[in-house]
Each structure stands twice: as structure tokens, then as C-alpha cells.
């Protein structure tokens, strides 16, 4: 490839922990790869599996879901639901033929700016190794939007 691969990565952050963690990473001036975009949700359990699939349809090369540590959920048990769903989402993505590393669930607290920077950087590196998502370069007839 002549041009360097710039992955497109979507990061869902829960409002109470991971998003605050991202904020802390920013004010702490940690260096983070620029290839990701953050979507804030009130809780990691608000992330509908449909959105993750939609992101891949639209050509995302990787998707992360970041939430509060188990036991620390602002809504008491939201992240326990999240980890159940996301385990099944990972199985489903593997069945759809994607490498399982293209999707990751992590817990980042509001105090873990350093961890936010680290998990995002590691994820970007892994996606760079994997290359573009097969859905991004899939040549097919444009389907009517659902």
C-alpha cells in the first residue's frame, strides 16, 4: 500500500466513567493516536448492538465500548448487562467473518486517564496490524437502507 492505512475507529464511552476518563487523558496531555472518534452514551448498557453492527456496515475498522468497572455503574447494574450482550456481539461478529479483535469491551474509570490512552492506543495498533475492515472494501450493490 502506497498510502499509510488510517483506521476509522469508533469508541462508545459511558458518560460517568469512560468519558470522564477520556477527559482526564486529554487534560493530562497523554499522547493518543488520532484515528478514533468518541460517541458519548449515558451508560455502556445504552449501546445497542445494532449500533455496533451499523458502524461496521458504514466501514468502521474497529469498535470499542468503554464503561465503568463492574460494581461501579452509575445506574447500579448497567455494565453487567453490557458485558453479557457484548460477549454475544463478539460471537456474532466472528460468525459474520470479522476478526474478534476488531471489537473490544473495556472498563475505564473516571480516574484512569492513563488507562484510556493505553487501551485506545493498543486498539489502534492492533487495528493497524489487521488492516482495513472487509466490510469497508466489500464491493457490492448498494442496498436500500433499513
Amino acid at each position, binding site marked *: 500500500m502506497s498510502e499509510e492505512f488510517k483506521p476509522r475507529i469508533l469508541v462508545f464511552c459511558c458518560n460517568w466513567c469512560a468519558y470522564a476518563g477520556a477527559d482526564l487523558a486529554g487534560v493530562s496531555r497523554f499522547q493518543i493516536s488520532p484515528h478514533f472518534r468518541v460517541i458519548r452514551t449515558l451508560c455502556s448498557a445504552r449501546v445497542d*448492538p445494532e449500533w455496533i453492527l*451499523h458502524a461496521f456496515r458504514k466501514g468502521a475498522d474497529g469498535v470499542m465500548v468503554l464503561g465503568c468497572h463492574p460494581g461501579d455503574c452509575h445506574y447500579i447494574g448497567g455494565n453487567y448487562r453490557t458485558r453479557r450482550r457484548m460477549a454475544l456481539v463478539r460471537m456474532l461478529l466472528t460468525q459474520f467473518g470479522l476478526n474478534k479483535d476488531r471489537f473490544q469491551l473495556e472498563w475505564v474509570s473516571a480516574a484512569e486517564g492513563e488507562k484510556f490512552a493505553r487501551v485506545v492506543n493498543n486498539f489502534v495498533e492492533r487495528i493497524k496490524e489487521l488492516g482495513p475492515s472487509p466490510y469497508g472494501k466489500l464491493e*457490492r450493490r448498494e442496498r436500500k437502507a433499513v
Partner: protein
Amino acid sequence: MAEKIKIALKRGASCVGCDIAIVNFNEELFTLLSVADLVFSPTLLDVKYDDLKKMPDKSITIGFYHGAVRNSDNEEFAHIMRDKCQILIAYGACAHMGGIPGLANVTDKIAIFKKVYKETFSTVNPDGTLPEEKSLDKEGHELTLPRFYDEVYALDDIVDVDYYVPACPPTSDINNKILTVVKEFVEEGKPLPPKGSIIASEKTLCDECERKRSGEIKVDRLYRIQEIAFDEEKCFLEQGIICLGPATRAGCGAVCTAANMPCRGCMGPTASVTEQGASMLSALASVYGMTDRETELSEEDIEKLMMQIPDPLGLFYRFSLPKSQLGRVVKERVE
């Protein structure tokens, strides 16, 4: 009496069950035929494709296309039906979402041909002959076959569709709904539903289902329906039998669950979501193996638990794979 309208039935990649669903109008068939003339239906009438091609454009009032689109013949006739019909209805789960043929999107043409023409137990094909679009017979006549596609499409991926009628096959409840709409349109001049309507309910199947629910659903173990002597009155999910009701559109009259078969999801996703698979995934993941010890489970425990759900893709997208967000399976190098 108002002038009769003209209707036509055409099939794509279909099992013809939808034609039978029309016959299944029973005595209501006479009501249908009192307001409409059936002008084209290769299954029910002695007609030829050329008859349809010769009809003037927009001369047919309502066309029912059933079956998915998976070869060049299906596609050609999807366009012809669109040209000849004023109103085109995607009739049945296959035209609506790809249906059972849509499961072919887990593989591709080469793999399908290899399996079907070379590997199945009953195949005897020593020369390894595969269907070709053009071939010559012994006398030198050129024979043609439609081109087989790599991917299966729903009807609205190919042409503009006015209405959708889900279900596999559409039940008499749904048929009667269409009949009422058509009859009122012909006899009283009542307006038709807005374009793009799905002729069914907006709610989930659970809303229509008569089975009893005791309260919060907890599923400790999954069973196939033949593995357990289940309670005929109680909700299937409560008894550990996977039922797609929570993620499926209502409107069919819940005939399967009433006959002791769990819902398989042929009505497609409900009005408020785009993905049937994702909503069933959320529903099942939230109830399966839920105990009071949830906080003590590790992530590996959760993963092991979910691994017990066999084939989530086939289960959640049995009828809707081509219309799911990802549409088809890809092959990525796994390292």
C-alpha cells in the same frame, strides 16, 4: 359496481408457499375475485412470461412479488413487475427481507455450486459439471440459464416497493387485512395506506401471544423443543426454549405459539428498530443464565455462558440476513 382491478402474482427465489397462501384465502378467494381479476400467475394460471411482457406498462393495479432476488431472471422480472404494476407489494418474508434463501449470504456462489453439484451425499456427477449460463445441446442449439448471484437480495434492494407484507407465508389474518384494504379502495375509493407501509402490527409478537407469563423471565438452561416436556400454556422463553417473539413484529395472530411452536421470526424486526438479530441478541443476553450471583461471575464465565447459545447468526437472522446491518458474511484472515 366499480370496475374490477387487475392483480398479478410473480415469484422470485421462492418455495411457492406464498402462491398457496393466496389460495388459502379459501372462500374469501371469491370475495377477492369479485373485486379483482387475476391476470398473471405462473403457478395458478396457464400463462407464459411473454404474456406479462406484452401487457402495457402500469396496466396491472396490484402486483404481488414473492421470493428473494438471487439470479438474473429474478431481477429481470422484478423490473418487469415494477413497470407493469401501479402498486408493487413485496409479499412474504423472502421479498420483504430475503427470507430463508437469504441465509445463502453466509457463503457465496462458488461454495454453493461446489456443495450442491459435487459434495452432497446424493450427487452423482463424475464429470464435475456445473450449471453454465450458455451451453450447446447435441444438435447445436444454444441453451441459456439465468446467472446465479453471489448474494441474495430482498425485493426493495432491486426495485422500488410500495408495500411490504411480511411472514412466511402470510397468514390468513394478514391476507384478510390486505383484502379489506383492496376492497375498500376499489368499491369505496378509500385511500391506500402510505407508501412503504408494512401491512402488520407495529408491536412485538409477545403483545399478541396468548401464552402465560409469570413475571420476570429467567432462563437457566436452553432446550430444543424436542428435549423437554414443556408446559403448553406457559411462555416458551421462561421454559428455556428460544422464541424470537420479543424481537419480532406482531400481526400474524401468533399462530405458531398458539400451536406450540416457538416463534422463528418470519415477521421481521419491529417498527422501532432496524435489526431483528440485534434486538433478539439483547433480549436473550439479558435473561439467559441470570442469577443472583451475577456480580461474582468473571468475564470468562459470561463468555462460556454465551457460548452455549448455538449459532447466534442462524438463530437471530433466520429470515432477515440480507436486510441485517451487515447483510452478508465476509472472510477475514484470522490470526
